């Protein structure tokens, strides 16, 4: 991954703006940039979504495969998340195996979905101990303009809600798949993520690329529709104090509620 050196005057100017209660794109501290979400964009993927937060753009695909369950959880299906910060998305991304930022993004998204219990994985069991559905979530980052976490979770949530997998039946201990009969994934919860960047001593929501480049620290909070916390990740080189963290959690409630409105409403 290349390193971008941020001009000192940009760092100062963004810090000063925030100290005065402003941001360079006129947003308030709790505002997201424009959000665009479209599902069913890839017909070869059983579930898919294209999400844009500002100029950040991610394609998410959900693909099922039949596989063996983990031996310690023989009766639950598997959800696997993978992400690629492809070099298309930024002059600083390089080809090659996923680097640590890419792995962090995939793992945080995965935890948020899994711990929230978004998909009822028990219903993805076909033959206990032998055959289960494995759902692969692939995050394809195509334009990076800040705040990948929230876009990744929003896109993943939408792709899972969009997904229709073939019906699998068991006949004489054999799995029979009927590709003509598609069923929705068993979605039992909704969860989204809200990321704050600490700049000029304040926490601002949905950092843009330039805000991310000058931020001292970052906190991402995953929250379910009922307001409970399902995942959290602190990032950045500087610390956060307890008060800041608790305030961020408090603000996340309201913000996530609004964010939920972007999800397709047909499900549940």
């Amino acid at each position, binding site marked *: 991954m290349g390193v971008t*050196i*941020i*001009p*000192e*005057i*940009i760092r100062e*100017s963004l810090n000063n*703006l925030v100290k005065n209660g402003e941001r360079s794109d*006129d947003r308030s501290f709790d505002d997201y940039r424009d959000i665009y979400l479209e599902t069913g964009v890839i017909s070869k993927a059983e579930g898919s979504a294209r999400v844009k937060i500002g100029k950040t753009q991610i394609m998410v695909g959900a693909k099922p495969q039949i596989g063996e369950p983990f031996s310690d959880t023989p009766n639950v299906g598997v959800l696997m998340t993978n992400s690629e910060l492809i070099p298309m998305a930024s002059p600083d991304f390089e080809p090659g195996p996923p680097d640590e930022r890419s792995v962090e993004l995939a793992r945080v998204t995965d935890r948020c979905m899994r711990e929230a219990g978004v998909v009822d994985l028990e219903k993805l069991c076909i033959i206990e101990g032998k055959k289960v559905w494995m759902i692969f979530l692939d995050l394809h980052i195509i334009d990076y303009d800040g705040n990948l976490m929230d876009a990744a979770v929003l896109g993943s949530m939408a792709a899972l809600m969009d997904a229709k997998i073939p019906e699998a039946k068991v006949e004489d201990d054999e799995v029979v798949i009927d590709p003509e009969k598609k069923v929705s994934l068993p979605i039992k919860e909704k969860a989204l993520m809200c990321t704050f960047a600490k700049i000029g001593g304040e926490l601002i929501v949905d950092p843009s690329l330039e805000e991310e480049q000058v931020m001292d620290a970052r906190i991402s909070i995953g929250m379910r529709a009922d307001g409970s916390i399902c995942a959290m990740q602190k990032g950045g080189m500087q610390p956060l104090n307890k008060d800041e963290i608790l305030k961020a959690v408090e603000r996340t409630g309201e913000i996530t509620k609004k964010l939920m409105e972007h999800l397709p409403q047909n499900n549940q």
Partner: protein
Amino acid sequence: MIFIEDKQMVIPGDVLADKEYQSGRGTFKEDDKICSSLVGLVAIRDKKISVIPLQSKYIPKRGDVVIGEITDIRFSMWNLDINSPYSGILPASDVFGKEKRDLNKAFNVGDVLFLRVVDVDEVKKVKLGLKGRGLGKFRDGILIYITPTKVPRLIGKKGSMINMIKDETKCEVVVGQNGVVWVKGDPSMERVAEKVINMIEEQAHTSGLTDRVRNMLFELLGKEIPEKEEKPEATEEATDEEEEEEENGENLIQ
């Protein structure tokens, strides 16, 4: 024979004219034909056909003034990013003369400087210098990046466009020929200038731009838009201002 009109938009491979015309910038000769190598607007001057690109990278040229950012400090020189496929160096001797001093006491990584391109050698090593009026390190302000070929448009005829922005926003504005623009003033005015400059970047290929910039400035500043002066629409167009390009060096400074 000529197959296009002045100011027409063309794309790579378009045949523009045959051999009675001369091949200018943004064009190439193939057999007996002159073709465009770029996406841009045609400029016909007598028998010379050029294409002014809508998108381009800055290629350093001796004598240009540019805005660069220090990316590294090395033995007796600074490395600078000048928004170009070729990075630049600023020799310590240019700043300290023969004196030996600690480089990071003068400039540090992340500092933004206004410099002159002193030399570009055969291996594309770009030597930068600070000798000249107004050159040196910027303090405060913001940076805006535009396509280098749109710099003449941002400056306008005899500086008309840039002066209007300066006058209305009360900001200091410095334009590097590498497409980096520095703006300093009241923070809210800096953002007004940024919006206007981004609009010029987007619409540089259209005509009647000065009026739209004025209207946008007035709107953002909450001022009443004055009655449009009686003036035929066609007086101001992109390629006319290209001719100003030569003189946008020294007079950009403050």
